[in-house]
């Protein structure tokens, strides 16, 4: 019975984590290039419940009762890599990747990858992210000095009609280990095998931004489901509390 209290408590804790995840998705419903995360919940490993026999000296000593679960736990976090819709902004420094790959960003902590192509120029004329980190081309940071900046679908950059560089679009054979670092950046784990995508493998669109791949209806439904599951687990704890109260106060009471 007391075990049931802990089982229901894990249910509440897990739903809380789910809710944190959903609210983070909702908060980022207008963040360009945001990829929603989902949490997978699994049960704790099953254990075999046994009864210790009252009769001393019997051969087995215990009798199996059956398998038992001790509640739920957070199994894994999954980033949904589905592509978001492209939205036209008309700003020539807004770029979107239509297909595979990431923009490559040089930060103080090393190379990072992003799908948020909401770039701008810094005071020296380099193409940077909103945080001021350099966006990399095949030959390093991209210097834009001129009045018209165009990006072709193959990622080639032209300033006032003169070819400057190609955007470095990085692809991964397996995106599973990529981790969110905040500021829409992802870091790659050791052995992720990043590789520069060839023109033609993917397409860059200038004047567009990628919308987050959220489905708001789904998020709201998940939010309600998590809320009600949380409530159900709360009710279980309350029921346990009442049962415990009964056994503690009423069984064997003389009235």
């Amino acid at each position: 019975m007391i075990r049931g209290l802990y089982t229901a408590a894990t249910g509440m804790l897990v739903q809380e984590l789910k809710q944190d995840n959903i609210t983070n998705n909702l908060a980022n419903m207008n963040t360009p290039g945001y990829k929603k995360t989902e949490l997978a919940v699994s049960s704790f490993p099953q254990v075999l419940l046994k009864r210790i026999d009252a009769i001393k000296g019997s051969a087995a000593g215990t009798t199996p009762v059956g398998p038992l679960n001790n509640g739920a736990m957070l199994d894994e976090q999954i980033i949904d890599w589905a592509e978001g819709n492209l939205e036209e902004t008309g700003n020539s420094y807004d770029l979107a990747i239509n297909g595979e790959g990431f923009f490559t960003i040089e930060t103080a902590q090393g190379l990072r990858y992003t799908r948020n192509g909401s770039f701008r120029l810094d005071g020296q004329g380099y193409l940077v992210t909103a945080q001021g980190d350099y966006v990399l081309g095949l030959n390093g940071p991209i210097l834009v000095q001129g009045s018209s900046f165009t990006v072709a679908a193959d990622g080639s950059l032209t300033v006032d009609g003169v070819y400057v560089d190609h955007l470095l679009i990085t692809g991964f054979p397996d995106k599973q280990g990529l981790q969110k670092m905040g500021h829409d950046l992802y870091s790659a784990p050791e052995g992720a095998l990043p590789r520069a995508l060839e023109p033609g493998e993917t397409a860059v669109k200038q004047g567009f931004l990628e919308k987050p791949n959220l489905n708001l209806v789904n998020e709201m439904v998940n939010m309600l489901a998590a809320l009600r599951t949380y409530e159900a687990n709360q009710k279980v704890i309350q029921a346990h509390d009442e049962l415990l109260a009964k056994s503690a106060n009423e069984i064997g009471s003389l009235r």
Partner: protein
Amino acid sequence: MLRSLWNGASGMAAHAAKMDIVANNLANVNTTAYKKQKAAFTDLLYQRIGTTGQPVRESSSGPALSGSGVKLTAVSGLFTQGPIISTGRELDVAIRGNGFMEVELPNGQLAYTRDGNLQVDGEGTLVHSSGFRLSAQVMVPAGAKKLVIAPNGSITATLEDGTREEIGVLPLYRFNNPGGLMPIGQNLFVSTEESGAAWEEVPGQSGMGTFQQGMLEGSNVNLVEEMTQMIIAQRAYQFNSRSVQVADEMWGMANNLRK
């Protein structure tokens, strides 16, 4: 759960800021040479879950992370060309293409503008609509009948006796990143570290714009687009307020565990 609350609150704050920006754009839909502003968002840092006694399995594919909401990263001006509107006024001048005019503020600081609604002050100097002098220091001779501002910025006055005289030249100024300019009101901008320093160019050369006399540049705000952005900001605000409500409800349930 506290995190849900803050996530929702960060979403509400960011979208309220977006709403302010949209409202300011809408208010300036008829302001001469107004450049619309745009809000940019980014997600916040991620923290590893599982250090505080939550039921989390050590996963092979990296730790589960919990996000902490959204923030407004940058508000940048969008310096696209506004519509050129004919006014017929002699001292109205629009810039078609790149570039800014330079204005000297009373404290000696330089400001930049595309608002070409010029005036002549009591001393005969050409001033910006805010009353501040253009740094080109153009004196209009007393009794001048006609002023002609050429596309390349040279200003010619026809004097009382009918002779014509060049009285000054308006240069254009450009920036590496006009989006980083800081608006200070009265259609003026000052340079920042983001925008880089201004440098002078001759109008019509090396990608610079030209002057158009008798015209003004309108605001580049697109009403339909701003209304759409307003709806997006409002609904996003609502969704995030729902996050806060649900977090509150959950907290209430935890609070009522013991009846």
